[in-house]
């Protein structure tokens, strides 16, 4: 039997964080499955999945991580999960769309878009937002597999665009792949 854990890490960014975390995992005999990290305004956040022998408990793993000698402070969450091969296959689903929304910055823009997605049963696979001067830009990768009529989504987006002053575009992921990648 093995234990599978998902580990979440938050820290001020500096060189050596991934070496710290993976070093701790390695010392406990862990096998790293997947890792994803992102940096925002000087802060690093990371999630990783690792598999350990059954004698490595969640609390043992957490205490080993917390024992890392680091000039910055770490926040960890460790959770038990099912075997990683139970995760959905990687690669975007067939009905993956890219939505971009740009407009003057004001409160509630991301909430407006994400609520609309929720109402139409659209799962947000990835979201990145940036603010330059007074312009707010959102780029969302969306799974529309559960959407029956894309025309309804477009109509709702148009309404939202009119209300919020955002310029919203929704296009299939394939379009971005073919214009930016060599293989077709």
């Amino acid at each position: 039997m093995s234990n599978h854990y998902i580990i979440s890490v938050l820290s001020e960014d500096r060189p050596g964080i991934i070496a710290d975390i993976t070093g701790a995992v390695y010392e406990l005999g862990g096998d790293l499955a997947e890792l994803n990290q992102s940096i925002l305004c000087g802060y690093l956040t990371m999630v990783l999945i690792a598999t350990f022998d059954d004698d490595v408990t969640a609390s043992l793993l957490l205490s080993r991580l917390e024992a890392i000698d680091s000039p910055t402070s770490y926040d960890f969450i460790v959770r038990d999960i099912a075997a990683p091969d139970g995760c959905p296959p990687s690669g975007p689903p067939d009905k993956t769309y890219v939505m971009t929304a740009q407009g003057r910055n004001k409160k509630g823009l991301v909430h407006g878009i994400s609520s609309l997605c929720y109402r139409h049963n659209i799962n947000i696979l990835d979201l990145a937002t940036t603010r330059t001067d007074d312009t707010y830009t959102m780029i969302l990768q969306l799974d529309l597999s559960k959407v029956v009529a894309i025309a309804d989504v477009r109509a709702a987006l148009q309404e939202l665009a009119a209300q919020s002053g955002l310029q919203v575009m929704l296009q299939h992921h394939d379009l971005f792949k073919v214009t930016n990648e060599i293989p077709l």
Partner: protein
Amino acid sequence: MLRSDQILATVEMIQKENLDVRTVTMGINLLDCRAATVRETCRAIEERILERAGSFVETCNLVSRRLGIPVVNKRISITPIAFVGAGFDRDGFVELAVALDRAATSVGVDILGGFSAQVEKGMTKTDREYILCLPEALAVSEKVCASINIASSQKGINMDALALLGRTVKDIAIRTSHQGGFGAAKFVVFCNQPGDNPFMAGAIHGVEEADTVLNIGVSGPGVVARSLERLIDSRNGNGQGLRLDEIAEEIKQTTFRVTRCGELVGRQVSEILGVSFGVVDLSLAPTPTIGDSVGEILHILGVDAIGAPGSTAILAMLNDAVKKGGLFASKTVGGLSGAFIPVMEDAVLAEAVGRNELCLEKLEAMTCVCSVGLDMVAIPGSVDADTIAAIIADEMAIGMVNNKTTAARIIPVPGKEAGEMVSFGGLFGASPIMTVRNVGKSSRFIGWGGRIPAPIHSFKN
């Protein structure tokens, strides 16, 4: 995972730069529709078009909605009608035009091309009847476009046909004088006409093609213009240190992206319809919309007036870069593939005509290095038939000698003189009427008839 800047670049192309798939054109073979009578043939043609293209427009719209990219025109090209209607007379061909118009309307396409003949070496009796029918056929039909191939690099120029066509172009314009001679905007004369060109008015479904084929026309002068502006702007706002090879590279990369969109749409539509995918025609085809002009690109690249010295060299570079970018992006490339300079359809070119910056002779020189020839050129209605024939002959000679496609779509606007405006609206655009110099001085040449022999294909030093 795609990067944010890549995503935003693609979105900009569609949202602000007029990126679209200009046309999806379904080529349909009609050779076996010939029946014992004109009426039966018309019925067979209409049934064939309905059967093959019944769900064509709907499918294009579906793919367009799914991907989020506009597909502007949905069109049909057919086997050159003179082959299908072999043996029919002038009235028979007019009936065929009416039937084709009806079929085009019933399946909802914008335009149907292929009301055509191929006479580069000689004319049959049918071909002569076909030519005679053109003024009437183009007046009584709305969506039908006609074209005729009268020259090729292999066979030379059929000057007998050419002499007839000078007269025909005038007659077509006169027969549609209530529309400013609009009929002539639906008729093109070709040298080396390709059988897989999806763009109108010269699209045909060549006899060398399979039963049904889907060809895609991508465009995007606006996308190229904006990308060049961005490139120039990125160098201190004035293109400091920028050199022409870098500019050519930018055009190449932009064309790659544009072509890819066409390829994607084409593959999806052909898969849904179960029709074989033909070619992507990667052309810079302007529209009268502001910001969708080839002339504007010439301005950006450094001539302050279209037609000024340097215009031909810039156009040569543009045309070549478009081909290089597009060829790598698509599995199969065909059709015309190059930069178009249709005067009436390009607001900046039309403006240059109005300012006397662009004359017919310079336009002709520019057609030596790009697609597709003297296209959508409005001339005074008073210009005689032989002069029109001679203008066309010059353009055919350029194509013949240079082994390229050239075409002439000349509109002698009835009752109007040089400098006056003519407007057809929509995609056909508007422009001032161009001056034709040396009118009436080519009749002896046209009077010879016969053929200009094919040029030598060796000893090219």
